[in-house]
């Protein structure tokens, strides 16, 4: 059988998994704190806007969101298969398209800031 093109989806999955591992827990902690009523000062509009307005800030936010979306989508695709959902092509298409759409949307919103 021919060599697979799986690296196309796996490499970003591995990068995204690493990004999720290092960054998502603390980001969730921040929004969890906000949810509990203690909004951290850095989550105020002025500071968030300043961070996202900055070119580096945009790159960081986009990198974290896009890679995390992709990694979650790929893992969810594999999980669907493990749960017995055999329509792998369908699951892959839906999930990867959703991840790409989310990433494009993030880019669009970031560019508006």
């Amino acid at each position, binding site marked *: 059988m021919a060599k697979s093109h799986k690296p196309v989806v796996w490499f970003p999955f591995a990068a995204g998994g690493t990004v999720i591992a*290092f960054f*998502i827990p603390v980001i969730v902690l921040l929004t969890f704190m*906000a949810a509990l009523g203690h909004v951290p000062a850095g989550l105020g509009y002025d500071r968030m*806007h300043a961070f996202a307005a900055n070119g580096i800030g945009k790159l960081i936010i986009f990198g974290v969101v896009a890679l995390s979306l992709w990694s979650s989508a790929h893992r969810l695709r594999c999980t669907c298969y493990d749960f*017995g959902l055999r329509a792998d092509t369908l699951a892959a298409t839906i999930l990867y398209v959703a991840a790409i759409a989310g990433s494009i949307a993030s880019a669009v919103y970031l560019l508006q800031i």
Partner: protein
Amino acid sequence: MSRRPLVREVPPTSWYFRHPRYMRYMSREITSIFVGAYCVLLVVGLQRLAAGPVAWEAFLAALKNPASIVFQFLALVAAVYHAATWFNATHKAMPVQIGEDFVQPGVISGAHYVVWLVLSFVVLYLAGVF
């Protein structure tokens, strides 16, 4: 004497109940549902941020509703479980050989945890938590 091998089918939707090891694996994989949903929330947040201060403040306020609190908590648990399982496994993908010896797996995983803690504290500091 002829061969008549008996094939035992693996139940495709319930095989993971057969062993705690598989349940742990599925728990790890399911974190992707919560992390993925949380990322969607982040995208929504970006849209609110781009829409201006009123929209952003409304977004922060909406985080406080009970369903959101529950989701945030579950997402936090999922994110931490993902991180722990990821760091514990990294040494397998990248063994470090020095001469005839290999760096202890615990050292490689431990280094990841240290970096994770440092990064987290930096982010918390930048976010004005302390």
